């Protein structure tokens, strides 16, 4: 069972991966709205990225996200602590992704 604390910690890991060791964005110039939907707890979380810098996550459903990620909270925590690979999660249907071709590659930074 994933607690709210574990979920927030995992979301912070996703944010942290967008910032390099020197404090600069890994994806400079990247502006996107990312929507997470955790199906088991039916919660929507959002992360807005401006010029590669992720803003604090908010619990909300966006009207027009650029990237939609749908999975259970448990799967998300597994992806973030690397006990589950993204490819395995995708191929076993644990994760649904809606994104552009250009964003598919960039998502590897924070997934």
């Amino acid at each position: 069972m994933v607690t709210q604390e574990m979920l927030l910690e995992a979301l912070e890991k996703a944010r942290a991966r967008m910032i390099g060791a020197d404090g600069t964005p890994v994806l400079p110039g990247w502006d996107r709205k990312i929507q997470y939907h955790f199906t088991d707890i039916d919660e929507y979380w959002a992360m807005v990225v401006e010029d590669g810098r992720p803003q604090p996550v908010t619990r909300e459903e966006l009207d027009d996200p650029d990237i939609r990620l749908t999975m259970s909270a448990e799967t998300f925590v597994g992806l973030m602590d690397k006990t589950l690979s993204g490819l395995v999660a995708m191929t076993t249907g644990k994760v649904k992704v809606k994104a552009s071709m250009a964003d598919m590659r960039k998502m590897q930074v924070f997934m």
Partner: protein
Amino acid sequence: MQPSNRFEIDELTPKFLDQPEHFNDWYFTVHFEHGGRPLLAKFSITEGNLLGQATHFTFSQDPLRLETEPDAVVLHRALNDIILAEENLPLEHSCTDDTVQVKMGSLTAFCQPQQQRIVFDKEGIKADLTFTPRGPILHWKHKAGAVCQVTDVTRVSGSESLSDVRGEITINGQTMPVVGRGLFEHVWFSALNFFEIRHMNWIYAHFDEFYMYICHCESITSESRPFHFETGEMYMVINDEFMPADSLEVTPEQWVFLQEARRFIPLENSVVVRAAQGTLRLKVRLAHYPLILRPPTRLEGLTVDNVPGWQSLFFDGPVTLEGKFTYKDGRVVPLKGGVGINEVIRMGAL
């Protein structure tokens, strides 16, 4: 650069290990006969996070199991082929002035400029094979270390050595002397976007008189524009002629339903490669069951550029080949004893 029968030591070393994303392979195949049957053994060490860190040993011995149904020919799994894989093992490597040694799990490759050796020992299967180039080593984009833009994002460098192979393989206590032909390859890259690829054919082929490799890839850029890539090189052994490919075409002529992947794949392709010296025309036919490099995958939950549902297929198809090379002055060289591999990637909507 003049074609050379020797590798530069730098072509053999692991590349990009300090980069956040990287891939190296050391890939060995051998086609040989034992007991009157055509056989194929493949050994590969793949390194890095772009396509996963793994070793593979495959041994193909069954002919194709084809079943003709009213509306399609169906390809069933081979019954006696052997596939052994090891995943997520560390790469150990060392380099001296004349040897690059790479080891992962049960496979160790000793790569020297003039020859390469692969040693394998796992689950009662042993192999010790030495690869010696039949002639000039072939290179992606015609130059050692040249960087090929295969897709919008993907950059590949590599060397392909069409080799005479000697040694032995022991399976279930039976030792088979190996006198055959095969490939040693080292390919490396630090950027790959697999999702850009729609269609890729990489083929190497040995004939008694000739050898070659080609690669053709069609992909989509991040702006959804088509992106075309092709490269290849040929060598006419009997005339000592090195022939970079000017253009190439790979066209499916017959299809077969690959039951394991729930989709059709080419059973036979025609290949045309044009060079300054003349034109190569081949029929390339699947000879053994495909060596599946990644499980055929349905990505039902993936929506890319508003297209929902995708599937991917990635395999090495062992092939036999027949054909001829026609020089521009009208001379024709019939090509005999054709064996090779057709590596296939397909990525598309479900």
